[in-house]
């Protein structure tokens, strides 16, 4: 493992993503990717009394599912990296308090899933661990309650707003296996272009995704066409459009390879989700369910996954602060480089 260029780490032993699992809520179950998820819930509470408890149960069951599918005993898993959007990451710490695996709570807003995978890759590549489980969750109802208004309030959502995905995604990274392999990680810088509109997260995060993507391409000396797919986390329709525009200013055309989990998970017209999906679970479930499957079927062999996060809270919004964005990239390939 070594650092190359400005901020990219090249793997030496190529950690393998040995298993994945995902659980999604009812709205996601009606979306175009429903068949790829391990479990589709029929209601947002899932038998719990509060949305926060429901979210904890979702991440817990997702981690249990990934461990069960992997045939690795939970005692053989060295560490767990997980996070979510609720204050002090209570969904993951409450949900995973009984798994008995050393736990790192990670917060990178909606970039948490890939941030966890980046950290786990470094641990595994440096022989500090053999198996690590990563997970991230979000829940539409608990997120609305914390960041916006009560659900029953009769207000309107602007066309730029995004819909927080209910669900959780989880992967196990292992030191040995048949792939797909992590080849590079490019942790991103915090980029703030002064956007203050909390209903336009895509625009707030696009500059960070752009910065990380261009840096990754420069550090690795790759062109966008090297990848079969460049998938961002939750830029949505507007943010994706902006990212593709920004890339052109640097001479990169990513239109052919680029897509966004926020665009993939919902049917914009039928599901009235405006600019698309968002939340930690957006990239978490789309990668763990859909993209991981495509990589297994060799429909995608070289994937650049860029998770984006808006590093704000409701207090900072009310105080008129702008929204700092972040994006972490991880290069996942079916062949070791």
């Amino acid at each position: 493992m070594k650092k190359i260029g400005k901020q990219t780490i090249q793997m030496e032993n190529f950690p393998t993503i040995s298993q994945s699992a995902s659980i999604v809520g009812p709205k996601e179950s009606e979306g175009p990717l429903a068949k790829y998820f391990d479990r589709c819930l029929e209601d947002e509470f899932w038998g719990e009394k509060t949305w926060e408890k429901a979210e904890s149960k979702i991440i817990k069951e997702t981690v249990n599912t990934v461990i069960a599918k992997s045939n690795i005993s939970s005692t053989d898993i060295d560490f767990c990296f997980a996070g979510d959007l609720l204050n002090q990451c209570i969904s993951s710490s409450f949900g995973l308090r009984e798994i008995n695996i050393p736990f790192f709570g990670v917060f990178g807003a909606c970039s948490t899933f890939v941030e966890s995978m980046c950290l786990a890759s470094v641990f595994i590549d440096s022989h500090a661990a053999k198996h690590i489980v990563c997970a991230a969750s979000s829940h539409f109802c608990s997120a609305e309650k914390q960041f916006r208004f009560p659900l029953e309030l009769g207000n309107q959502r602007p066309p730029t707003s995004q819909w927080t995905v209910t669900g959780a995604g989880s992967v196990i990274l292992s030191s040995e296996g048949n792939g797909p392999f992590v080849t590079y990680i490019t942790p991103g810088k915090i980029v703030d272009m002064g956007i203050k509109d909390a209903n336009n997260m895509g625009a707030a995060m696009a500059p960070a995704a752009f910065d990380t993507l261009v840096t990754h391409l420069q550090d690795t000396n790759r062109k966008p066409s090297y990848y079969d797919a460049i998938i961002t986390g939750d830029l949505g329709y507007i943010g994706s459009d902006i990212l593709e525009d920004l890339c052109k200013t640097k001479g990169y055309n990513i239109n052919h390879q680029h897509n966004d989990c926020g665009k993939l998970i919902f049917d914009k017209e039928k599901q009235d989700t405006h600019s698309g999906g968002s939340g930690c679970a957006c990239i978490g479930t789309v990668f763990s369910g859909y993209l991981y499957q495509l990589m297994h079927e060799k429909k995608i062999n070289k994937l650049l996954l860029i998770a984006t996060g808006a590093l704000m809270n409701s207090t900072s919004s009310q105080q008129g602060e702008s929204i700092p964005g972040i994006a972490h990239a991880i290069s996942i390939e079916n062949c070791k480089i």
Partner: protein
Amino acid sequence: MDNPMDTPKTYSDYVDKKSPNSPIFTNCLKAFLIGGFICSIGQLIFFFCKSKGLDTSASNTVVSIILIGIAALLTGLNIFNKIGKVAGAGSLVPITGFANSIVSPAIEYKSEGYIMGVGGKMFTVAGPVLVFGISASVIVGMIYCFFV
């Protein structure tokens, strides 16, 4: 193409161009029709009360009570937010919106208990309306009292 990333100002202008606006005309039309419909129901209740012999002041009170009751019930049945999504200001501006803004946080925060949840959070949305509404009426009342 100019680089939108030059300064926050250029980026903000660029984002404004990229972001679709709310359909103001159709939103206004829906708000007008549904808001008008809600007010018409109020007027019908008012006429009914008058016909039963209540005076104007008592009839006004009954109208408010009934509209608030209906809005609170529809909020609890998870119907009001669906109306509000279409109607916007049409259901927000009449007294129905005020009822909805108090009942919705009361339901949402019930999970934090009756004291700190329902009691403490009930006015998180309607609080500013009460504070500034009451303040304004106090000021207007004082002007009326001293100068008229």
